[in-house]
């Protein structure tokens, strides 16, 4: 497939405005300004573009949730928090083609009637925040942004807002709290951000990759976009592939390729000639799939049918040497560290999972532990918490217990009794670093 989102990768000077313009840049925005907001929204609805940040919600429909005739300002927020473990695709777009993101932001802002947009980028991405700042300055200079976008009379300002280290701020309501200068505590929904968002005003939050799809939808038409993939699962998708593959990295493929193609054809297969054991198809918050499920199609609906989710498209590949109990413990550490602490099931549940999984690894597992883990996971998911972080650890960790229960039971059968001891989780305990090989 000819790349759309990564077509600038490998070109010299691809970050500059002149390079972007020479590749037909900002033609999509010109077309959008000529079409008008309603027609742009119709284009995006017809393209069947679904959000690339994790939830896969139809982008055009999301835009229509903004109340008509709302008097106050509206905002567009580009979510560049990219904090889901196994995901590093947005950074790739920003690194090679920041103007593609800015054009997407301008198109979306125009469609929803926003005159201010923010790019919320994770705090660690200092370099990529600077790349965006530089590109924004160029765009302002050339009157692509500012009081009169491309001479159309439509005003738009775009600002970069850097986070400061918090996984939860990738969740859209937590992101809004953080944008407003507060601790990143997720908000209850409803009201949804499209109704009450940033600064109490209607706000649309779209992922970097989602926005980067917009220029080509405008220039090549929604039918072209919808012709890639299959109905309801259309368009190109970036897959971030990491772990035990020969060539880790970001690959752009049509939705609906199989994970076998992604892992074995595009990323060179498993390192060292070893066998595939398991993989997370959409970041670490997606239920794990086993080697037997590698022919699952990588799109939203096929992943849902397989009992998992495409999520952000972060494929974490694990080979046969990996101990799945260690994987579960590593993930539990991550989520315990990143739980904001508002909701008891998530805050306590993730902490208890760390305790139990560490105890099993220390050789003191108990026969009831696998069921206790599953019970904690049920308690912390399915609407028991304000935001989906409870689900984000419950789903993958319970899937590991369900699919690799024998590994837990083998350790437990050989275990010796020991008193439960509380492990420190904060501030720097971190996950178990060394996977014992």
């Amino acid at each position, binding site marked *: 497939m000819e790349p759309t989102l990564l077509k600038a990768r490998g070109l010299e000077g691809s970050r500059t405005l002149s390079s972007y313009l020479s590749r037909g840049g900002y033609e999509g925005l010109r077309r959008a300004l000529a079409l008008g907001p309603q027609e742009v929204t119709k284009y995006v609805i017809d393209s069947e573009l679904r959000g690339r940040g994790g939830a896969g919600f139809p982008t055009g429909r999301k835009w229509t949730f903004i109340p008509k005739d709302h008097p106050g300002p509206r905002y567009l927020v580009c979510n560049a928090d990219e904090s889901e*473990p196994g995901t590093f695709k947005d950074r790739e777009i920003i690194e090679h083609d920041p103007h593609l993101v800015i054009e997407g932001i301008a198109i979306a802002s125009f469609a929803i009637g926003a005159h201010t947009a923010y790019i919320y980028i994770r705090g660690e991405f200092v370099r990529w925040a600077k790349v965006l700042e530089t590109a924004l300055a160029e765009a302002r200079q050339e009157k692509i942004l500012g009081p009169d976008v491309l001479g159309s009379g439509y005003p738009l300002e775009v600002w970069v807002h*850097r*986070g*400061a280290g*918090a996984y939860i701020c990738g969740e859209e309501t937590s992101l809004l709290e953080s*944008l407003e200068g507060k601790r*990143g505590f997720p908000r209850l929904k409803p009201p949804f951000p499209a109704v009450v968002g940033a600064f109490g005003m209607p706000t649309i939050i779209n992922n970097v990759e989602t926005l980067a799809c917009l220029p080509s939808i405008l220039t090549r038409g929604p039918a072209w976009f919808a012709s890639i993939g299959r109905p309801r699962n259309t368009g190109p998708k970036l897959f971030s592939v990491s772990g035990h593959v020969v060539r880790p990295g970001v690959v752009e493929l049509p939705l609906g390729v199989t994970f076998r193609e992604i892992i074995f054809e595009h990323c060179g297969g498993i390192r060292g000639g070893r066998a595939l054991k398991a993989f997370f198809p959409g970041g670490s918050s997606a239920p794990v799939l086993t080697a037997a499920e590698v022919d699952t199609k990588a799109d939203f609906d096929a992943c849902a049918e397989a009992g998992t989710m495409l999520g952000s498209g972060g494929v974490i590949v694990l080979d046969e040497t990996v101990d799945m109990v260690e994987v579960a413990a590593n993930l539990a550490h991550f989520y315990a560290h990143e739980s904001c602490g508002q909701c008891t099931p998530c805050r306590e549940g993730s902490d208890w999972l760390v305790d139990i999984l560490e105890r099993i690894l220390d050789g003191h597992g108990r026969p009831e532990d696998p069921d206790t883990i599953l019970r904690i996971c049920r308690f912390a998911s399915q609407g028991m918490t304000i935001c989906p972080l409870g689900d984000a650890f419950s789903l993958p960790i319970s899937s590991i217990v369900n699919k690799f229960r024998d590994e837990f039971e083998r350790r437990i059968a050989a275990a010796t009794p020991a008193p439960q001891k509380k492990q420190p989780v904060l501030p720097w*305990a971190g996950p178990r*670093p060394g996977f014992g090989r």
Partner: protein
Amino acid sequence: MSTAPIHAAHPEELHEVRFDPTMESQIAELLTHYPVPRAALLPVLWLCQNRYGWIAPGVIEAVAARLGLAPAFVQGVVTFYTMFHTTPPARYVLQVCTTLSCSVCGAGELLAHLKERLGIGPGERTPDGTFQIVGVQCLGACGGAPVVQVNDDYYENLDPAKLDALLDELAAVKE
């Protein structure tokens, strides 16, 4: 170009903080980005951390006064996020990613090597104040696992030999 070291201001310099005209104008510019001053809190804290190296109690007081917020509120925000230093950091903060992809690709070996070479583990710093190790969660660069972020810069696909070369280079930089 190698990573710039952090110059952490001495705690005594930060008892009472007054922003100089450059910082004042930067803060004024940041305030134009948002409809309410509070929203500029994170950017202003970044400005301060870049300037003073860390967020001392005196800095919290000054930021709160400038943005019309309660110091306790600012303190709450500073401590929620992991990247603000509330104590003076070493010149180089080595943030070793320990989440899944980095872990299965050798983050443990990197930490063991750092322990052997520098004698410190996560949460500790060398007595001369050159290096500090922090075990961090996913840095969003899993394709280059294992990853270490040194101050603002990412170093990817590391192994003990590359890490040694990096540490040699950083340690050689004079104040």
